[in-house]
């Protein structure tokens, strides 16, 4: 089938009315890649490299789905440098691509991962880990969190001990670990949380741990279970055995499976599988289904080659990012005027043919990415899950993370339109702050570059970037400050409005380090605004200090969320839950949801009062902590 054929069929098949008619090229691009790989897949032993070569040889432009066009500002990049980052010299100065120009570097994530696999012991030499290593603080503080997640269930037997021990010291590095394992390894069997993607013919596509190729037999077993139940006219949802749960999700020709003993409820795990599937769609679009229709034995691993790191980062975020279960996003706290200024310039750009413009920021250690501002063209709206997946894709792919460089990459927003690619222009202003401009046009690179320059100028002029940095240092709401508000100021003052270096809060924060948490034993809270699709989370403070404790609290919230939103009978209105770890209070109204954690000995009446005060506090400062008005979220 010629590529022009497939492009037209792609256009006519597209059921989504949301997307405005696209230039042919972008349609062309999505289908082309898949066609290419389809062809590769038929030649059975085609290696990833060969496939890449094949695509390159065809010279058909942006053939790579996972490839990212990386444009250096200076237009030059030392070739040896490129060798290291890219591997086998597949980078080339693009002259055939639509975004082609003198300084365009084609980057391929898969080669980089190969590097990492080959040399896991010296991460600093690999493209990924080196980049991560530069943000050293963040990696280090994530360590115990990561090691726990990565830990095998029971340490102590001879095999497990050997594998478990190095992990507990290791930093969380993105990308796949334990590739040497397979389903025969005891250590593999004892990992707490497995994720698998496979095709309906049983071909492994992704496994969180172990080498996919070695897991072919295991993958076939999973497929057999699913199809056995399917043949009986039913669809398997989960299997339970002891503390283990095996959760299945069937998405057309794609099967997703999670095997976990983390005590997370089924509903949470299936939501996580949905996100993993969404991440795959973000990289490939749903038109990959057609490849399976044509060839049930279609092997899509080459298409996803090198994206291991994206999936493992997403899976890792399931243990610390509330956005993953709240289906909401967080904003960086900023003075109202600052956010307005940022929004105005983004709006300006959106009016000039950009579909979405997002100014984002990676906020502090271990916490999620936060939105500074975002706008959508006309009635276009962005689902929080799409933002999560897009943010994860960009932050986990080292290719994007070169400060002052620009990247241009095809991506698909699964909730917006799972059938079509958009094109993302990504630029980092500094290590943590970046801009994403999304367009339907694959030839819009230079236009978007111009937009970025305009935006950058305004952001600098209006001090937005320095405000962002200040806010990043200051952090968000602190439960300790609630007592200050209640007892001294009573009213609308807030941590966010405080000048950064006033003496009072400092003094109080010191004393609160001795005491535990906020008033009435309040340790932490999450507040989700239903209409805004946004949430705010208080900063972790004593006694929720370690990552292990934070993860446990996160899991408790997640359980509470599922319990409140129980299918068929929910949402419940209120829930009070006391166990040996916490008192948890949850309050769901049509406007907001509040999740609060208290000392397990907290007094019920006082806890309720405190929750009311938290809600009042959030309302008082909503101008600063939420992105208000001109909301594009009009579902």
């Amino acid at each position, binding site marked *: 089938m010629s590529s022009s054929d497939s492009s037209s069929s792609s256009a006519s098949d597209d059921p989504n009315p949301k997307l405005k008619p696209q230039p042919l090229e972008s349609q062309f691009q999505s289908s082309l890649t898949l066609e290419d790989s389809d062809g590769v897949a038929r030649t059975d032993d085609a290696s990833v490299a060969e496939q890449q070569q094949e695509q390159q040889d065809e010279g058909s432009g942006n053939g790579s789905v996972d490839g990212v066009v990386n444009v250096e500002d200076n237009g030059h990049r030392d070739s040896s440098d490129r060798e290291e980052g890219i591997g086998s010299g597949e980078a080339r100065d693009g002259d055939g691509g639509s975004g082609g120009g003198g300084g365009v570097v084609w980057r391929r994530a898969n080669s980089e991962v190969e590097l990492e696999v080959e040399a896991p012991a010296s991460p600093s030499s690999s493209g990924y880990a080196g980049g991560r290593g530069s943000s050293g603080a963040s990696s280090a503080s994530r360590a115990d969190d990561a090691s726990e997640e990565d830990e095998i269930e029971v340490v102590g037997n001879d095999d497990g001990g050997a594998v478990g021990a190095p992990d507990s010291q290791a930093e969380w590095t993105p990308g796949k670990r334990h590739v040497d394992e397979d*389903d025969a390894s005891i250590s593999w*069997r004892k990992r707490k949380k497995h994720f698998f993607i496979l095709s309906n013919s049983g071909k492994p596509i992704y496994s969180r741990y172990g080498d996919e190729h070695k897991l072919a037999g295991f993958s076939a*077993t999973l497929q*057999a*279970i699913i199809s*056995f*139940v399917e043949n*009986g*006219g*039913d*669809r*398997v*949802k*989960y*299997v*339970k*055995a*002891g*503390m*283990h749960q*095996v959760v299945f999700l069937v998405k057309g020709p794609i099967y997703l499976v999670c*095997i976990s*003993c983390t*005590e997370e*409820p*089924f509903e949470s795990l299936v939501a996580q599988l949905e996100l993993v599937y969404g991440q795959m769609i973000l990289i490939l679009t749903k038109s990959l289904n057609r490849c399976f229709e044509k060839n049930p034995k279609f092997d899509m691993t080459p298409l996803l080659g090198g994206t291991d790191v994206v999936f493992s980062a997403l899976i890792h975020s399931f243990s610390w990012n509330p956005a993953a279960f709240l289906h909401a996003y967080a904003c960086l706290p900023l003075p109202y005027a600052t956010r307005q200024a940022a929004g105005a310039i983004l709006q300006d750009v959106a009016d000039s043919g950009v579909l979405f413009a997002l100014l984002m920021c990676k906020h502090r250690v271990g916490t999620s990415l936060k939105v500074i501002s975002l706008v959508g063209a006309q009635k276009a709206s962005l689902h929080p899950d799409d933002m999560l997946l897009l943010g994860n894709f960009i932050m986990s792919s080292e290719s994007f993370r070169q400060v002052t460089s620009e990247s241009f990459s095809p991506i698909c927003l699964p909730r917006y339109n799972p059938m079509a690619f958009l094109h993302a222009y990504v630029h980092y202003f500094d290590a943590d702050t970046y801009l994403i401009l999304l367009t339907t046009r694959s030839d819009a690179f230079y236009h978007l570059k111009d937009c970025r320059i305009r935006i950058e100028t305004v952001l600098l002029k209006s001090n937005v970037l320095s405000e962002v940095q200040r806010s990043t240092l200051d952090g968000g709401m602190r439960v300790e400050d609630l007592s200050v508000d209640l007892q001294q100021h009573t009213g609308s003052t807030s941590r966010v409005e405080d000048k950064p270096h006033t003496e009072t809060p400092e003094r109080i924060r010191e004393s609160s380090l001795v005491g535990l948490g906020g008033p009435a034993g309040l340790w932490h809270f999450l507040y989700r605004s239903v209409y805004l699709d946004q949430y705010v989370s208080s900063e972790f403070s004593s006694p929720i200090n370690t990552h292990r404790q934070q993860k446990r609290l996160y899991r408790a919230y997640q359980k509470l969320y599922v*319990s409140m939103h*129980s*299918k*068929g*009978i*929910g*949402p*419940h*209105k*209120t*829930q*009070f*839950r*006391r*166990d*040996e770890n916490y008192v948890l209070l949850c309050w769901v109204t049509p406007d907001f949801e509040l999740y609060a954690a208290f000392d397990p000995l907290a007094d*019920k*009446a006082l806890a*309720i009062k405190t929750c009311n005060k938290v809600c009042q506090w959030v309302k008082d400062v909503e101008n600063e902590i939420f992105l208000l008005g001109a909301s594009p979220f009009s579902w």
Partner: protein
Amino acid sequence: MGMASVNTASEGMQLCIFDLRRGQQEGQELDKILFFFPADLPFATQLSVIGLSEGLITFTRIFSPDAACEVIEAERHSHVFFEAESDIWMVMVVEKSKESKAACQVDALRKVLKEVHSLFVLFHGTMRSMLEKETSGGLIRSHLYPFITDYLSDFLIGKKLQLPSFHDCLMERGTVQMLTVGREAAIEVQDDTISLFTYAVLRLTPHALSSGATSWSYLQRTNAGSQVPALSTITNSGSVSDNIYRSRDTSLDQDNNCQVKRPLHHNRWFRGNDGFLASDIWGADNGSQTSVTPIVYLQLTEERMYLCAYQYKSLTIILLVPVSSILNGEQGLSLVKQQVLENVCVLSVPASLKMLRVEEKLSKGWGGENAYHVSGYRYLLVDDERVSRASPPAKVMTLAKDSLLAMSKLREEVNLEKKAKCSSSEVNCDKELEICVRAKNGAWVIARTSRGKELYMVLEKASETLLYASDAVEKFSNRYCSGVFSLD
């Protein structure tokens, strides 16, 4: 209540028992099936249910070697697993009803499997021992078929099997409902006590729960154990289920078919000549008119005991007499029974004075059907997973469906928490837990666990505040649970 209806109205449920140590050779798969309901399902279908179950048992052991598959939850069916004895699995496949798709009471269903197995062991000993006695499997099959079919007939309502559902979230199968008696009078509840209690409720007092203490038809004195004229018209159900296992195992056990005892056969107890309850289920002694006294097996020691039941009005006394301590069978036993009656009772009056007093005391103290109703509360109190007390079912039925669904879901959550706690390395399995949920319909749905006791409560008419609901629990706790769930 014929077995035929059980058979035909079964599209909603399948129950199988299989032995993983059997039929592992290609072509011999049928050998692993010990029981399948409905029996008229094609073998291919039976094997496919068992094949899936076996596959998942093997699969889950990869990750969870100590606790293999417990449940497969699919969109339309739940498959509930119970490893009754080592390598002998019971699997129940239940079609989900439309209204309760979200809340299938898996734990309650597993307790059904556990219950039928305990009862089987009570009367026949373990399945494994029976398999070892007769390795072809004919013996166990011929026992399982009538036993389980008789058991399942209890779940028949009209032509449909009514298995535990969210409606039953405020009761606990596999527990003994204790009368409030003095501590010295209460017995320690063991596994055997639960089985015996279950059996007594199922078969010794079939009318007590539904129609009060007025009609005790099986107490009618009859002359011959083999004739039950008053009841024979109702209990002609044997033939159908006999056919079920006959058709399956014709070659194997046509000969000993008649010897298969059916302890769960309905309405087969009557008052014997000696005043004790008797049944022809176990046959009659050669040459004598007295029916054979049933022998039961104690679970832990597998000791064999004679089961002797005596009834006076609404009082049932069960005596277990070790078989080993009676030298000459029925004759010796009747001596023992006589002694019991002479010592405990005086035969000249309808019953003994002592027994009369006990009966009087209990029936005075027991307020009947609604004895445990506490106005304003719908509750279930479980002690140590063995003893329970609950609002009468008729009162629970007044609750809104949404409240019941919410409670059903909450019980599932609590069970998960308990399981997590027990599986963690901590020695102490007791979970201190307090959950108060205000459901969408405004009802408070509450669970408390403390020191081995569990309290579940639905308050539909409580006011809006959490504090009010907590207060109501506190009052209940102080009054009925000796303050176990009180905060101070």
